[in-house]
């Protein structure tokens, strides 16, 4: 336990020092502000609260950016430390390999949480005040977005460890991380779309598609945020397949949580076989 805390604290310290946190929160903030400022113009006199609209746009942004930031944070965790010789030192000390991974995970999730909350938090407040102080309940939407983005990020941090522990070169781990991102965030949805178009009888759309949608942690994240907004105010059918989903509401977030647990377990198993 002592080792876990030490490793987590050091990861956070390094994240703060090497400007990782600043950089990623600035990126999130920049994109978020663009959405806030552009989004409010055509909004005009719509009944829906402006902040809620912003949260809807930000959750789409999150699906792309947060997994990317998470993977960039984690791909170096094992392969890079072996390269630099520091993992050998850690493993030579009386700390279990499981604790090493959990410590890194907690540290990286904290780094990501700080980045997401400062980036989205500032953007949320800007939207809130720029539109003449909307309903306070809309701010809860921002909080929900930050929390669910952190959970999504945690999932991809854990998946990044699998990539990092299974290869020896940092470069290979980086390539693997980008491939994971491309597949989970971009290609997966395209494949599903293709499936919907190809299946004429609607069986795929009814029985397979909803499961596949929830199966992907990034899509599950999007579904959760859209359904939460649906319930709140917007009223439009942003959630899309909402009615036919196997999981609904907060339960959709079980998908990224389960992925996190599986990925952490798997990367621990792989790390135990690593011979530095």
């Amino acid at each position, binding site marked *: 336990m*002592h*080792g876990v805390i*030490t*490793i987590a604290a*050091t990861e956070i*310290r*390094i994240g703060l*020092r*090497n400007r990782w946190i600043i950089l990623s929160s600035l990126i999130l903030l920049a994109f978020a502000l663009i959405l806030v400022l552009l989004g409010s113009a055509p909004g005009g006199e719509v009944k829906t609260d402006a902040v809620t609209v912003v949260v809807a746009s930000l959750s789409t942004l999150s699906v792309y950016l947060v997994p990317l930031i998470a993977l960039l944070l984690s791909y170096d965790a094992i392969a890079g430390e072996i390269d*630099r*010789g*520091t993992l*050998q*030192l*850690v*493993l*030579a*000390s*009386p*700390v279990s390999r499981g604790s090493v991974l959990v410590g890194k995970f907690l540290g990286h999730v904290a780094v990501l949480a700080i980045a997401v909350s400062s980036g989205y938090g500032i953007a949320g407040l800007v939207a809130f005040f720029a539109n003449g102080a909307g309903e306070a309940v809309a701010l809860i939407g921002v909080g929900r977005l930050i929390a669910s983005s952190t959970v999504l990020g945690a999932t991809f941090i854990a998946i990044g460890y699998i990539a990092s522990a299974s290869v020896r070169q940092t470069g290979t781990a980086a390539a693997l991380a980008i491939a994971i991102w491309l597949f989970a965030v971009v290609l997966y949805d395209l494949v599903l779309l293709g499936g919907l178009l190809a299946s004429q009888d609607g069986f795929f759309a009814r029985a397979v598609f909803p499961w596949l949608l929830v199966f992907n942690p990034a899509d599950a994240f999007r579904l959760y945020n859209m359904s939460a907004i649906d319930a709140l105010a917007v009223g439009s059918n942003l959630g899309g397949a909402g009615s036919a989903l196997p999981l609904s509401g907060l339960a959709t977030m079980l998908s990224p949580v389960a992925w996190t647990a599986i990925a952490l377990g798997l990367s621990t198993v792989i790390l135990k076989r690593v*011979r*530095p």
Partner: protein
Amino acid sequence: MTEIVKARNVGMKFRAVEALTDVSLDVAPGEQVALLGHNGAGKTTLFRLILGFIKPTAGSISIAGFAPGSDAARRVVSYLPEQVAFPKMLTGREVVRFYARLKGAAPEDVQAVLDKVELVEAADRRVDTYSKGMRQRLGLAQALVGNPRLLLLDEPTSGLDPLSRQHFYELIADVSRRGCSVLLSSHGLSELEARTDRVAILRKGRLVADGPLAELQTQADLPIRIRVRAAAGAVGSVHAEIGGGRINCASVELCCARGDKMRILSKISGLGAQVEDVDVASPTLDEVYRYFSNNGIEQVQRGDIQCTA
């Protein structure tokens, strides 16, 4: 007292490559042992076995009676890899504190080891401002923290200037005086500057020598080189008298076995005014090392190293 490292007939095979074959090596408490060998001779493999990162394919190793890699064994051993790059953004003190916590060492230990390696002034500067020598001392500091019973140092002095190297060995000597065993690897004997109690030489995964330096020198029995500078015009008669080879028009060089040294020297002194100067060179540490690590090739040249010019 139990040996800190006890390796018995250890073999390590990586697929088709035999990295270590039948290596038996003991390290007693407080003893300093230098492990020598070319690149790829198996030094780092032996270290990884002692750390428990890999398991031997033959034989056995125990660390103070514990299995390598077990928690108990890891509390005994401290390691400094050949290449280590600490996080650039952390300060020296933060790096040492990190490893101190992992090892469960007392917080005041951090200051003590920084003091010992003379990094106190630089302790609160970032590691990326450190020179190579300072980084190496930082590496030693993290290894020293927590009072280990065995220091495992993989080529700790490669790339250090002679002064830092000397300082490094002084530190290690101080540590071993307090009862900590030291097993360090190095490329050559000359780099060690005869500072360790015992020398073990690995050649292609086999232990070819293991003993105190003086013993190895006797065992190698390399010839001694004697160079005689003759007085003007006398080089011909000196050469005729003592043999060997003329290396220029003023000097004669010959090699002899240890046992013959005094006989030949007295013969030279008998030449009186014909001789201007005599230079006697014992085999260097590098030559002794080369003898063991290249055994066979060197044997051909034995007895007349560079004397056949």
